[in-house]
């Protein structure tokens, strides 16, 4: 039994729901591909790194429009493909198909939402398929996602951050990752941790317990221990600059690129450029009013944070079976003040080295103060029917009853 993966991909791009049987087959294929990958994948530049997308399917299409399509462009996705957005199923289905079709051109890292413990994805699967089988297939597939990647032996990519139990990449490589995310331990930390906010011992947002913890460490040998703190999230830890520098030095790396935290400006650079956060879900939950970005890494490891806003309303289709809220919510992005500096929640210590290039693409090159207006694509908004760049003919009327046997190009 074969599956026409190109057909699946074209259907995914058109936001068509794949049948339950096809999803099952694709998940099996996806697991087979990932089973052969180690926990930390080695990736070569040039490559584009994408942060949380959370089921915001149209914004994923926007990312491909802006940064290029797979396989023309290599991609590393940092996780959190599902939950919160209205199209988690379509989003993960597309990425799964791309991974099967171009396994060496796309890396899929596991995020904390790729788990059986979250409810949004489950209810969406139930609503769209009438039963929970598809959810089961996908969550079984999630168990196979890798835990991290290293770009050109220099940039460590992970969804959340560091763990007090992990000092070396080798330690990550020996973890048995093929299971549900544990509540605690190294695997949980990798998907849950956050960099500690600047001047962390004295800010108001950290728990009182951490004050004692960092103050207690007096000797030099305790400095490393003292740099992890209990996380407000209830899982993972906050990791500081010292332990980050130590981890990078031990493993001969230069930088950590991660996601997991919403950045109003789409990205954040921290700890004197030791860590950066990439956030790729614009106007998160259709209400946060934030920008998003993808990190484009060149052959010489030059980094460019390509910042973008939400997909223009006229290119976005509101879900008809889901609640009607999406249409109303997405128009909030046009509200005044969305781009005001006052609303930026980035801390003062953040170094925005790439600020000069953080323009919103397709909107006249400058950051629009009047809010986002529909149709402001500047050529970037293309109709879905013409967007396939790898020569795949799009046939909207095909069915799955007679799958064409095709050979994979691997």
């Amino acid at each position: 039994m074969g599956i026409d993966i190109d057909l699946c991909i074209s259907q995914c791009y058109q936001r068509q729901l794949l049948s339950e049987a096809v999803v099952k087959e694709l998940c099996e294929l996806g697991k087979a591909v990932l089973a052969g990958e180690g926990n930390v994948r080695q990736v070569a530049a040039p490559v584009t790194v994408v942060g949380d997308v959370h089921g915001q399917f149209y914004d994923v299409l926007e990312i491909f429009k802006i940064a290029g399509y797979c396989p023309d462009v290599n991609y590393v996705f940092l996780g959190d493909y599902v939950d919160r957005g209205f199209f988690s199923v379509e989003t993960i289905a597309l990425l799964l198909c791309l991974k099967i079709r171009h396994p060496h051109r796309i890396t899929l890292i596991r995020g904390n939402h790729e788990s059986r413990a979250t409810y949004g994805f489950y209810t969406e699967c139930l609503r769209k398929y009438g039963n929970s089988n598809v959810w089961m297939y996908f969550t079984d597939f999630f168990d196979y996602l890798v835990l991290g990647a290293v770009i050109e032996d220099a940039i460590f990519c992970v969804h959340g951050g560091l763990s007090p139990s992990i000092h070396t990449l080798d330690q990550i490589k020996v973890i048995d990752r093929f299971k549900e995310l544990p509540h605690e331990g190294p695997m949980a930390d990798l998907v849950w941790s956050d960099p500690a906010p600047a001047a962390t011992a004295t800010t108001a947002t950290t728990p009182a317990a951490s004050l004692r913890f960092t103050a207690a460490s007096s000797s030099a040998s305790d400095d490393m221990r003292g740099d992890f703190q209990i996380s407000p999230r209830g899982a993972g830890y906050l990791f500081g600059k010292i332990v980050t520098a130590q981890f990078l030095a031990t493993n001969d790396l230069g930088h950590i690129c991660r996601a997991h935290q919403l950045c109003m400006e789409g990205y954040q650079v921290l700890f004197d450029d030791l860590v950066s956060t990439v956030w790729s879900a614009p106007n998160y939950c259709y209400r946060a009013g934030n920008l998003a970005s993808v990190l484009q890494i060149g052959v010489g490891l030059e980094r460019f944070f390509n910042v973008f806003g939400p997909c223009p309303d006229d290119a976005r289709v509101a879900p008809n079976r889901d609640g009607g809220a999406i249409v109303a919510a997405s128009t909030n992005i046009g509200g005044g003040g969305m781009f005001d500096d006052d609303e930026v929640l980035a801390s003062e210590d953040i170094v925005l080295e790439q600020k000069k290039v953080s323009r919103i693409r397709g909107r006249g090159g400058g950051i629009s103060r009047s809010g986002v207006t529909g149709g402001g694509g500047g050529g970037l908004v293309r109709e879905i029917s013409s967007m396939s760049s790898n020569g795949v003919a799009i046939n909207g009327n095909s069915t799955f009853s007679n799958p064409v046997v095709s050979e994979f190009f691997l």
Partner: protein
Amino acid sequence: MLLAKDGARVVAFDARGHGATICENEALDPLLLVADLVAIVAAVRRDVDQEIVLIGHSMGASIVVSAANSIPNVVAAGVIDVVEGTAIESLSHMHSVLRNRPAKFRSTDDAIKWSLRSHLLQNKESAKISVPHLLKRLAGEPPVFTWRTDLAASEPYWKSWFEGLSSRFLAMKCARLLVLAGADRLDKELTIGQMQGKFQVVVYPESWHYVQEDVPDKLAETLTEFWTRNQKLVTIKRFPIPIKPAAATVGATAPQE
């Protein structure tokens, strides 16, 4: 019971205008209620060094969140099933909700049955314990029971309970927990805060609004874990992992072509 086993002392009190508490001024003014909470904690705590965890449900959450920074040594505070945006939106329905509930009952049993039938509560055992205290018996025969707390009269304070709740929640200096029933529908401020990792969210999809009554065991577990993780003398658990894999490499890493 779970909490008590770990050495925690649980205090739940009848606030002003509720249950057996008798005060001259029964107004549900948040300023008064916050002052009450601060005073009660000061009275029942062993000493200033004792760690305090505050938990508030619905309107009570607003009080907890406002009081947290004024009470010494609060290590953690939890909010149960209230989100500012949703709460303020539902205020316009409050009047019809109050109109639709019976003003009087012939017995506490009737009130318990009504609470279960009208889908206020799911847990029968819990309803039997909690509902009678929501009522007071009027003088005379035959027995007539009415609601102890005059919610309609508290209308001037409704908005002030919830206004600014999200920002006050995020401004608390202690560890923050948000427990939600049904689904995690957050307002804009909490959506941003949660996605920036500023607080913990626990969702009980099977529970209704009175989480502490519908799923008391699960809630107790969550609160125990929340408290113990945020205690002062907690050490970070390190899991031993071999530096180098003992046998051959686990899963070859395929270099990109």
